[in-house]
């Protein structure tokens, strides 16, 4: 058994664990780097608490997104679902005097219904996941703006701020417990339930799943409902954390959550799921963004970093899973092929044109007139 395993190339032997190794290596890299550059400010208890608080917000969504992506789907409406359900909850509490204990479950149910709408649009009307949820993102965000106008709804009962930022004395923050609980729940769901099993089957081989009598559409809808409910829970947690909510809240949820799940080794091509990987991915992204803040790098670089992480990890996993790469012979071989040469010339032409245009612009430029 062991000798057999040892004959396989290293990448193949590591493959089953890659979901964990990938983000772990990156987390370690961040730890080492920050340990060298900014150990005092990065490893302060208050800062670690900040990282955990931030990560906790994304855990429920990463858990649900793992199911959605494993089924070959994607959900680009979760930021808007979080904002809209948060705002509806806020209105129920502040304007209609609802008890917070009722308003929170209502918010989560509202999110589930929004997920249901997404799921039905995708399965009944055959709108591709990407377009369907992107369009519904506009719809949900639009409703949030219509409802809240420019208002910031603030100051909520203690129960809500406990959910968002409460601390168990001498222990971890309450939202971290909520986040970890959802991840554990997701793990059990993935490995021990019909829903989890069929999620993998559907993503792995939709025709086979259909043939064995699995209701593919119903389980797709389930995944989007779970996603909607998780996004709403995140909306509730965010409202509690800031003790405020507005229509434009949670703008970066979509890509951040997708990045965390993908870094964790869940395949965008379906079938390959890792809940532990998603957990590690969430931690990694929160640590990375916190590191950027600690290093006083401008906030807007976060978006650059998240994008870069998605592209590089997807490319890495695709490369690792390509069984016949031995024949391909790496990047240099690809570049020297006739088609590669054409691509190089084409890229050179584009960049050349850009440089020429910049040069002309620079030479003919007059005095700058700053607007405003």
């Amino acid at each position, binding site marked *: 058994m062991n000798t057999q395993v040892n004959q396989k190339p290293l990448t193949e032997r590591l493959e089953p664990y890659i979901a964990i190794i990938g983000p772990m290596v990156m987390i370690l890299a961040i730890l080492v780097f920050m340990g060298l550059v900014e150990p005092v400010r990065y490893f302060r208890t208050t800062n670690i608490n900040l990282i955990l608080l931030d990560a906790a917000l994304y855990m429920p969504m990463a858990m649900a997104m793992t199911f959605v992506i494993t089924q070959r789907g994607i959900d680009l409406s979760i930021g808007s679902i979080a904002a809209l359900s948060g705002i509806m909850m806020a209105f129920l509490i502040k304007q209609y005097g609802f008890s917070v204990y009722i308003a929170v479950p209502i918010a989560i149910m509202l999110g589930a219904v929004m997920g249901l709408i997404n799921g039905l649009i995708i399965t009944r009307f055959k709108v591709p996941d990407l377009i369907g949820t992107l369009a519904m993102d506009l719809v949900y965000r639009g409703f949030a703006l219509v409802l809240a106008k420019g208002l910031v709804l603030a100051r909520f009962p203690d129960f809500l701020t406990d959910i968002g930022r409460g601390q168990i004395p001498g222990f971890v923050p309450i939202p971290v417990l909520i986040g970890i609980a959802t991840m554990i729940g997701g793990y059990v769901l993935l490995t*021990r339930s019909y829903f989890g099993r069929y999620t993998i*089957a559907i993503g792995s*081989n939709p*025709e086979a*799943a259909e043939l*064995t009598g*699995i209701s593919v559409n119903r389980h797709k809808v389930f995944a989007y409902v779970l996603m909607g409910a998780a996004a709403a829970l995140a909306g509730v947690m965010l409202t509690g954390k800031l003790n405020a909510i507005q229509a434009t809240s949670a703008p970066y949820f979509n890509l951040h959550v997708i990045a965390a799940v993908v870094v964790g080794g869940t395949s965008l091509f379906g079938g390959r799921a890792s809940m532990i990987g998603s957990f590690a991915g969430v931690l990694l992204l929160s640590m990375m963004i916190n590191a950027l803040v600690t290093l006083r790098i401008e906030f807007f670089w976060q978006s650059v970093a998240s994008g870069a992480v998605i592209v590089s990890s997807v490319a890495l996993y695709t490369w690792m899973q390509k069984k016949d790469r031995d024949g391909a012979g790496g990047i240099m071989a690809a570049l020297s092929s006739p088609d590669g040469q054409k691509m190089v010339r084409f890229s050179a032409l584009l960049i050349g044109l850009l440089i020429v245009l910049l040069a002309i612009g620079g030479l003919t430029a007059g005095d700058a007139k700053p607007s405003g």
Partner: protein
Amino acid sequence: MTDTPLVQMRGITKRFGGVTALSDVDLEARAGEVLAIVGDNGAGKSTLIKVLTGVYQPTAGEMFLDGSKVSFSSHADAIELGIDAVYQTLALADHLTPAANMFLGNELTKSILGFPILDNKKMKSETERVLMERLGVQLKSLDAPTESLSGGQRQAVAIARAVYHEGLRVLVMDEPTAALGPQETARTLKLIKALKAQGLAVILISHSLDDVFEVSDRVHVQRRGKRVGVVKTADSTTQEVLGLIVGAEEVPA
């Protein structure tokens, strides 16, 4: 081998829009025998067995199981009555373990606090048992995803899924050896013989006459949607069957 057919298809016609894939086809398969179906590409072999397994509904014709008339509105109906198939594409979810595949859509569960929880341990041991007892196959690891198995092992998992159903009486295999090397082919043929010995009616679609002549008892030849002949393998030759396939001669059923 008994003489009353276990399954009978009579006068089966299947049209897809304007295309007639099958016209007036008869087929009989008996328990404890291997019936091979041969024919050129597009002769209607896959369509014929998809009608038999309830995936397609015939445009005309009837089917009998044990002498009584049956009709299937879905593949599940056919499985219910003991007719199952292993398709050309195997229909496995490659990312799942062999055990998860074997029980896909039919998972074993245990109840914890009233909730049904998948019993992965039981499914694994059952898979190990069925593979060993029914097919004589032992996998190195049952925890690795199915994609890491060889073609023949994947075949065994797909077959195990069909034979796990206690009531299975007819197993159809659509080109099981098409993608396999010589060693794996020999192993799959051995599996087919084992299933036959267990009293199943095995229907084997194959383009390899060598395989057909090694395992089958009778050969059903399709040409352009019609049955052009049925021969006893023992009384026939590759030449004769080849002649039927390309249409050089015709033998009454």
